[in-house]
């Protein structure tokens, strides 16, 4: 009915191998994130933990949730949703992380 197309791709059948690969990646990364937390890296502990979490989340979204094979529209909405959350974080942090420095 509408002008959209390419929707057939949404229902791509993903080979089991890909699922198992993501599963292994998630498991290994869980171990890595725990092990890294035992090493004192200062502020980098948080950074590493978050990078690992983001990598895991991307793997789940892309493969388990089939976004890698989804049409542009679905991808746009997924990316937009997370971006919007980031905007909330950044603008609130703009207040909280600056209060002390400027003395207000």
């Amino acid at each position, binding site marked *: *009915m*509408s*002008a*959209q197309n390419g929707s057939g791709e949404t229902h791509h059948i993903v080979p089991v191998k890909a699922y198992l690969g993501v599963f292994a990646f998630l498991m290994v990364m869980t171990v890595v994130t725990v092990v890294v937390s035992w090493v004192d890296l200062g502020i980098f502990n948080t950074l590493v933990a978050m990078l690992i979490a983001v990598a895991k989340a991307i793997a789940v979204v892309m493969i388990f949730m089939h976004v890698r094979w989804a049409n542009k*529209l679905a991808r746009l909405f997924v990316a937009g*949703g997370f971006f*919007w959350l980031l*905007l*909330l974080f950044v*603008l*609130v942090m*703009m*207040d*909280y992380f*600056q*209060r002390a*420095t*400027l003395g*207000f």
Partner: protein
Amino acid sequence: MSTVSSTIPEAKPNYLTSDFSIKSWLLTTDHKRIGILYLISISLMFLLGGILAGLIRLELLTPTGDVFQPENYNKIFTMHGVVMIFFFLIPSIPATLGNFLIPLMIGARDLAFPRINLLSWYIYLVGGVLTLSAMALGGVDTGWTFYTPYSSTYSNTYVMLTALGVFVSGFSSILTGLNFIVTIHRMRAPGLTWFRLPLFVWGHYATSLIMILGTPVVAVTILLVALERGLRIGFFDPALGGDPVLFQHLFWFYSHPAVYIMILPGMGVQSELIAAMSRKKVFGYEVVAISSVAIAVIGFLVWGHHMFVSSQSWYAGLVFSFLSFLVAVPSAIKVFNWTATLYRGSNAFLTPMLYAYGFIGLFTIGGLTGLFLSAMGLDVHMHDTYFVVAHFHYVMVGGAIMAFLGGLHFWWPKMTGRMYYEPLARLSAVLIFVGFNLTFFPQFILGYLGMPRRYHAYPEEFQVLNVLSTAGATVLAIGYLFPATYLLYSLFKGEKAPANPWNAKGLEWEQAPSPPPTFNFDHTPEVHEPAYAYAPEKEKEVVHS
């Protein structure tokens, strides 16, 4: 779109006459009937909110607090705000006109999820009943903003029940937004590309984005307040290490964009009215379309302008101030383009057009005074005064409600199959415009002179302007009673409406009878021309002159 009204088959049952049973209404999944159900519900809420507004103006007639106890006055303005914002303005245009018209305008037989659409109405009802029962039990006095720690720790009124009602009704607006986005993406008629969509649809698309991105945040904020109030665990209470300003951040992350939930659909209506009544394509159609989405996007980044005098950091205040000025650009584009559309149009002075003229003027005043308030320095002076009250009433009442009434008159023949009595409608449009300005313009001056909002008493030197404002409110109330009367009267005695009484463009006018049948179209319409393809030769003349 070349089909003329005469070819539309008549005498088939329409969506109103297909089934008369009460069950067929309460279990309907027809977007048109759900629109009507919403129209009835929000009209009742508007009546209630209006009565509360009347009580506020009654108290403010005299400087001393002689009508209500201060506590009761607090409850009255709180309930006026809660009812008007969450239960009238937010669902007003989207849930009624939007619900009714979006499928018709895009050539679809219904919204993508008709049952979810009905569910959203029931959720709205549950939320409304919860909030109204809180009022019946004794009301709430926090202001519609529910600021912490007053709401979470100190207020002894029915905060939880009211907040629960607001929380619940939020989900009805999420579901409406979700439904609209999917519908507009997936259900458009063949040939109806994005840049052929009526601007009404663009406005609702932008609104829906805000509904799904913003509403969940206010929901979780209310949840946090509830946890704090119920379990004393301290998210916002300074005594427990919490920060009340965090509440304001989360609350305004939704509630500033919510202003655009209220005004963007009105802007969509405005574009339709002006195009149809001046018989011209909307000037700079693409820019107006994109500016709707731009308003929705930038509108999310400006919420800190409500917090200049909280303990928000100076740096954040600067950024929010700058971004607030930025959001005025797409709004101004719209106003300029409507004006340019009117230029050399064959502008009719019919009722919908009177409301459209009113909208342009009042929204411009409301928008420009918003810029006063988004300037950090000036806001320190204006914050929490009647200047703010006047500003947002110019946008909400002068903008959103004018558009709602204009749209209601414009599509009334389509929705009900009846014409209203035009002379009376014109008179009441003028009455509303005059009454509105008399009510709220004095409040700009009062606020500038320093009269704070939310007090039941005030120094004597403010009385003259307050009396003017109350007098205006009386005129405004009478003005609103007129449409309520003659529109209801027209249902029974009104002239039968033809399919296209305004001779307007658009699938809802050209391809569907008035009122439309249950599934809107016998065959899915095909679209071969852009929106608002009115008399092209006239447009050329304008370009060359």
